[in-house]
């Protein structure tokens, strides 16, 4: 109690220091006056009385000092004083302050924002209870060497009976057109099985969720559940939404419930707003054999029992799943699903169907950012060490005037603290801003990134620790300076210990090494990007527009849909700005290309393995529109489109199945007799990186899925053509929606997105790193010159030329640069090897890339170290010698 009382009173006194000083003065004055008055009453003269009073009182100033020391919190008072001093000295050296604070801010900002993004991508889970219990099914075909995550409806039904998990369910994402009585719009939705909500553990915010009893009879369960966010945005959160029905793809559905807030379907970052029973599938995918065991479309996931190991469930799955497969499959009509016979369970805490193809990319970026932080820390360390040696003289003066060691260390510490605090605040601001930049560059705008407090603290801590360490260390060293030995020599800074100097140089070399790593990485990705962009695609993506329309969504039958497509195509071809136009199912680089499994035995006698062959359905003029050359044979004609037995293959197909010159006219069996009528040049199908694989093209009417794209090569502005196409669709069938429109060139450039994003970020960071290293080197040389002013003066005096002096310092910089490169290049090679899968068309140890990076670095660093030489040249020998 007493202690607390004293503390509070001391704190108050600290804050009102000035007023208390005045009060003390007045109190003592009044005491002295009363004492003097008493003496004068006894007949002493005024002068004598005043002296006697002072004698009785004792040392006035000493009393005041003791009083002051006990009055407030000394530590705090000194700290405030030191901070004021530090602030003043930083203001006197704005360059130093700006670089130190800027380094900190960028280091902290980059790090915490990048990690916030990585965390959001990597560690966020579905907003459901115990998401770590969720698992997802995957099947693998050793024969095709590929995996499939979707399964057929009969498979899912049988699997649910097998009781492998506490509960299991399946879903298929679709887009549907929703009419709420006011307007029609596209809404992402999921077809779900009965235990979907039970498996996820989602609760309703209103009404009820879908149950197995909602899936009983095919086509007769027109009920649905909507998300909380759709309820709010489309139905204004009104409770009477449960009494309403909505039109989806032309059919009336009853809303029976609303899911809890935050839940938007089972795939993280891909919101779905409506859940519909899987028994209503036919409503959304017409003319699709969705109940067939050969039609795999459902993502299957389950919830493990608490404590159940994923591996244990997987072991049972490996036994059960093949049995289910052989039970449901039609022995008369086997197909490729039988080949996918190796099953596994994946963790699905982010939902089934979540794509995770960016893990390497993210680890790479995190690595790059950590390197940047290291460089920033090294930079701060360098700066503070240099500063400490510059202040050595000042410190010696303070020590000789009797300042205690703790106060000296405190003073250094205050400056570091101030820098750290300012850098931290700026870093915080930078974090917000940089997060947006990263999300934009990485095309991750959909991510909701919360500033990551943990990471922010970590990077702040790392930088603060550096600043404190390198503020404290020189302070401690300086406090040991023996003022007498120091002797106030004019250029006393020369006393700086050799070890401290060596340490600074090591730090600079270390920075150069880190910058080398980043520069090499940047050069590699830049080269890779160039290669990706200059790859021969085999087709010309420029000036090709794509319009996706879906008459099925307006409730049109398959036959009617084809009629609509035909009519639209005919009229698009007549547009003045259209060079050629076609229809296609399966557009290159769109991510949706059908795969046909192909039994080699049916194809040819040649002994080759079966494989999956990308297959597109196209109308006439497809090859002309994409500018793919027809090497032999011909394009589809109207008779092919009617009879449906013609097929066109690419060059790789001919080579793979060893058809040679006899390809055109070759017959084979594929759901009936097929004849190859043409051979076209190879063209990339999915990615620029892919090996050229065999491909097949069928006449478009052969396709059963119903959703085709109109593709047109334009002569002029693509926007006007797209507008015209929209008008044509509207006039052909006003209810057919245009799902979306694309440009082929954009689809292609989206493919090289990874390369571009990484190159962009690497360039930012490596330029930053280069800049920091240059600043470090500049600092070392400038410092070295200021220390050796007299020496330079003497050299000039005895006839040294400018190049002689320059050589003196450049030799030192060269040694630093070389040692930095010597460490940096092997490190860069090792790291490049780690990311080799992300490179395209360039070896991780490409000598030209490494030479280029090293040359750029050397040039930049040499320039930086040559800049301060001007100061050396300006030294007047006479002046310098007089200083001695």
């Amino acid at each position, binding site marked *: 109690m*007493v202690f607390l*009382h*004293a503390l509070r*009173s*001391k704190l108050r006194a600290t804050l009102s220091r000035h007023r208390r000083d005045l*009060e*003390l003065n*007045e*109190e*003592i004055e*009044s*005491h002295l*006056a*009363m*004492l003097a*008055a*008493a003496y004068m009453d006894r007949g002493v003269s005024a002068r004598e009385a005043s002296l006697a009073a002072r004698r*009785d*009182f*004792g*040392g*006035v100033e*000493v*009393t005041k000092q*003791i*009083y002051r020391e*006990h*009055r407030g919190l000394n530590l705090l008072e000194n700290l405030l004083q030191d901070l004021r001093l530090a602030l003043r000295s930083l203001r006197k050296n704005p360059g130093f302050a700006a670089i130190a604070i800027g380094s900190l801010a960028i280091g902290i900002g980059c790090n915490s924002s990048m990690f916030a993004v990585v965390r959001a991508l990597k560690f966020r889970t579905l907003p459901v209870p115990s998401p770590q219990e969720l698992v997802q099914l995957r099947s693998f075909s050793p024969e095709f060497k590929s995996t499939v995550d979707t399964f057929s409806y009969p498979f899912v039904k049988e699997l649910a009976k097998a009781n492998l998990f506490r509960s299991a369910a399946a879903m298929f994402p679709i887009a549907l057109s929703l009419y709420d009585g006011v307007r029609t719009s596209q809404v992402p939705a999921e077809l779900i099985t009965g235990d979907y909500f039970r498996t996820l553990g989602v609760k309703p915010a209103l009404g009820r969720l879908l149950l197995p009893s909602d899936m009983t009879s095919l086509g007769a369960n027109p009920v649905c559940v909507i998300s909380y966010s759709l309820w709010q945005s489309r139905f204004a959160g009104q409770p009477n939404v449960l009494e309403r029905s909505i039109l989806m793809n032309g059919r009336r559905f009853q809303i029976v419930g609303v899911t809890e807030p935050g839940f938007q379907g089972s795939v993280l970052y891909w919101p779905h707003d409506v859940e519909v029973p899987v028994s209503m599938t036919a409503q959304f995918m017409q003319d699709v054999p969705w109940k067939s065991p050969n039609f795999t479309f459902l993502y299957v996931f389950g919830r493990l029992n608490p404590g159940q190991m994923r591996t244990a469930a997987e072991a049972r799955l490996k036994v059960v799943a093949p049995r289910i497969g052989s039970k449901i499959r039609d022995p008369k009509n086997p197909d490729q699903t039988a080949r996918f016979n190796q099953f596994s369970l994946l963790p699905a805490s982010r939902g089934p169907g979540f794509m995770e193809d960016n893990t390497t990319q993210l680890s790479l970026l995190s690595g790059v950012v950590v390197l940047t932080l290291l460089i920033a820390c090294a930079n701060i360390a360098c700066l503070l060490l240099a500063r400490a040696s510059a202040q050595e003289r000042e410190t010696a003066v303070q020590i000789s005037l009797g300042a205690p060691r703790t106060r000296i260390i405190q003073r250094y510490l205050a400056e570091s603290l101030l820098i750290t605090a300012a850098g931290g605040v700026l870093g915080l601001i930078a974090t917000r801003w940089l997060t947006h930049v990263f999300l934009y560059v990485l095309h991750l705008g959909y991510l909701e990134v919360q500033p990551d407090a943990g990471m922010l603290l970590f990077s702040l801590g790392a930088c603060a620790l550096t600043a404190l360490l390198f503020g404290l260390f020189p302070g401690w060293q300086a406090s040991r300076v023996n003022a007498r030995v120091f002797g106030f020599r004019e250029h006393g800074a020369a006393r700086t210990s050799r070890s401290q100097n060596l340490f600074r140089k090591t730090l600079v070399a270390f920075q150069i090494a880190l910058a080398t790593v980043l520069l090499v990485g940047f050069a590699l990705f830049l080269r890779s990007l160039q290669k990706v962009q200059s790859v021969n695609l085999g087709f010309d993506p420029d000036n090709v527009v794509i319009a996706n329309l879906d008459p099925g969504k307006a409730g049109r039958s398959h036959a009617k849909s084809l009629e609509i497509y035909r009519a639209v195509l005919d009229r698009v071809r007549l547009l003045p700005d259209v060079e050629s136009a076609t229809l296609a199912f399966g557009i290159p680089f769109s991510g949706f290309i059908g795969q046909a499994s192909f039994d080699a035995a049916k194809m040819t006698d040649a002994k080759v393995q079966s494989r999956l062959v990308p297959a597109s359905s196209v109308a006439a003029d497809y090859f002309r529109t994409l500018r793919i050359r027809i090497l032999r044979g011909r394009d589809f004609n109207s008779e092919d489109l009617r009879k449906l037995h013609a097929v066109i293959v690419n060059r790789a197909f001919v080579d793979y199945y060893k058809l040679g010159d006899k390809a055109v006219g070759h017959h084979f069996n594929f759901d009936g007799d097929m004849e190859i009528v043409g051979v076209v040049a190879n063209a990339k199908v999915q990615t620029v990186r892919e090996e050229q694989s065999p491909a097949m093209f069928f006449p478009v009417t052969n396709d059963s899925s119903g959703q085709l794209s109109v593709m047109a090569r334009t002569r002029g502005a693509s926007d006007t053509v797209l507008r015209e196409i929209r008008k044509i669709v509207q006039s052909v069938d006003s209810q057919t929606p245009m799902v979306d429109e694309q440009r082929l060139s954009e689809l292609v450039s989206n493919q090289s997105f990874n390369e571009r994003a990484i190159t962009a970020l690497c360039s930012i960071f490596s330029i930053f790193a280069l800049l920091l290293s240059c600043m470090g080197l500049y600092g070392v040389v400038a410092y070295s010159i200021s220390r050796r002013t007299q020496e330079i003066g003497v050299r000039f005096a005895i006839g040294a030329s400018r190049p002689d002096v320059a050589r003196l310092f450049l030799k030192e910089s060269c040694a630093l640069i070389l040692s930095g490169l010597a460490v940096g290049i092997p490190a860069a090679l090792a790291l490049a090897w780690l990311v080799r899968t992300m490179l395209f068309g360039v070896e991780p140890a490409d000598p030209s890339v490494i030479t280029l990076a090293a040359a750029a670095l050397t040039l930049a660093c040499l320039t930086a170290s040559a800049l301060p030489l001007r100061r050396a040249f300006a030294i007047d020998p006479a002046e310098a010698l007089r200083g001695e």
Partner: protein
Amino acid sequence: MAKKKTDVLQGTLDLMVLKTLQTLGPQHGYGIAQRIGHISENLLELNQGTLYPALLRLEQNGWISSEWGTSDNNRRARYYSLTKAGRKQLAEETESWERFSGVMARLLSS
């Protein structure tokens, strides 16, 4: 010739101040110094200035409080007075001092 002066024992100054304030009521620093000097018949070696850090300490501990007032001869002065906690503290310290001096007296007379 006056008798040899005695140093003030460490910690006893606080007790003297508290006791003086109890006897005189609110008093300024000069008054306290005069009273202590008068009672001790000027046998204590006490710089009056040392009173102030002691007053500060006592006030920080919450045993005395202070306010500005006017002295008898119309001078502005700071008046100190005992607080409730100060009275308690004085009682405790008096007791412990009496015990201590009793022990010393017995020890020295034996």
